[in-house]
């Protein structure tokens, strides 16, 4: 009833899509022997068809006979990975650890001993003295193996409790675009707006800006990146957008641009 091609050729695979195309689940990307970059949401069927599993942007690298396929999802919940930088909001304080909302399906666990950098005795001290529900922390995922909840740590430069700034949220799958290739996008944003920007892998972004006007411009720019994450030539377009917005608000004169 279903047509099946089982012609498994060892020669060059047939590609049905181009690099940077938007694919949806069930799309046959290629037929034949291709390399799949892991982890990516692409599977190979027994008959040699290579199928996309999520909606995303396709990336195809061809070098001679070899073809490498990877897929960047456009949407999806944040799943923690060790080493990720996350911006969390304290959801609950336990006896010796805080439970932190990191926008993942699991609560992040931040141990008191880690936060304080010294042994902690719950009999003499109350955790809420240091961090209370609603506080924002920048942390790193120390360990996570899916059998237990992710353990967070603040023992590194730039991590810890956040006392000032504005927090915004974007789709976690679009974080790589906000950072850009070799941090190009984020460096450009910081340069043009004068804000200090911390981007968490979980899609929360902390902005510290010299004044509310540039903050508004920075937020608009980030929202633009989020909405147009799947389009090429984004960095240049965002640069123009920021300059345009700054001129509109009288933060910059046209001659200087």
């Amino acid at each position, binding site marked *: *009833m*279903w047509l099946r091609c089982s012609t498994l050729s060892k020669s060059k695979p047939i590609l049905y899509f181009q690099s940077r195309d938007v694919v*949806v689940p069930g799309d046959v990307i290629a037929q034949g022997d291709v390399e799949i970059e892991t982890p990516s949401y692409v599977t190979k069927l027994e008959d040699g068809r290579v199928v996309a599993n999520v909606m995303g942007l396709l990336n195809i690298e061809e070098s001679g006979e070899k073809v490498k396929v990877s897929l960047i999802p456009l*949407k999806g*919940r944040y799943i923690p990975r060790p080493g990720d930088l996350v911006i969390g909001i304290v959801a609950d304080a336990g006896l010796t650890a805080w439970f932190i909302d990191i926008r993942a399906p*699991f609560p992040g666990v931040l141990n008191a001993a880690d936060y304080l950098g010294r042994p902690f005795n719950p009999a003499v001290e109350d955790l809420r003295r240091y961090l209370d529900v609603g506080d924002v922390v920048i942390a790193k995922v120390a360990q996570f193996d899916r059998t237990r909840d992710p353990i967070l740590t603040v023992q590194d430069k730039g991590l810890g409790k956040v006392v000032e700034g504005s927090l915004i949220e974007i789709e976690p799958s679009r974080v790589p675009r906000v950072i850009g290739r070799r941090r190009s996008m984020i460096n450009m944003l910081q340069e043009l707006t004068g804000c200090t920007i911390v981007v968490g892998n979980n899609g929360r972004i902390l902005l510290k800006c010299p004044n509310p006007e540039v903050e508004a411009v920075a937020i608009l720019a980030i929202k633009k990146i989020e*909405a147009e994450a*799947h*389009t090429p030539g984004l960095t240049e377009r965002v640069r123009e957008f920021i300059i345009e917005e700054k001129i509109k608000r009288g933060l910059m004169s046209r001659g200087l641009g």
Partner: protein
Amino acid sequence: MGLDKERPQLIVNGRRIDGRAPDELRPIEMEVGVLKNADGSAIVSFGNTRVLAAVYGPREVMPKHVAMVDRAVIRCRYRMLSFSTEERKSPAPSRREIELSKVIREALEPAIMSELFPRTAIDIFIEVLNADGGTRTTGITAAALALADAGIPMRDLVAGVAVGKVDGVIVLDINKVEDMYGEADMPVAAMPGVGRITLLQLNGVLSRDEFSQALALALRGIRKIYELQKEALRRKYVSTTEEV
């Protein structure tokens, strides 16, 4: 129409009660990402049947004891709204709705790569806004779109359609009148890309030949719906690309 004692003539001059040919689908509309709070959502109509689907997750499982260590729990609720039928439907979950929730969940489960998200839950809500036959298959079609919109990895999209036998003719995508007065109705859902049937129910009597004919017709219909699903998903991103 529903209260007539007389059975209406369902096929006149080879045309069906709503003017369609036996192998013709109703006009289909699909839109993805219609709800803001949900991670993924879709609204689908097959003629007068209109169904809204919303997907949440993978998210924390509540209550915690239902979580599974090796994969995500998939929960599904199918519901017909009080105003979806001609006569008001009691909002309490009926036997039929509870059963359909299970059947729909089982039709979607083979497509969802739940093993990627252990100890989490994926919740699917299917609300029938207007019922005119084929609500379960429309619901599956909408839910598959909502799952894809939520970014949940899937082996393939799932599409569904109901076929039936009315006045001795095998017809595609039956509506409520054909369902009520026909000899048989058979909802089918499948993953056309990987060639798997995920739902197959039969109410009424079909001969062996009629059954194979009906199944082939359903799968042909599903192919068309599947292409429309992909188009609907792509449309969401193409529109922003064009703005740029």
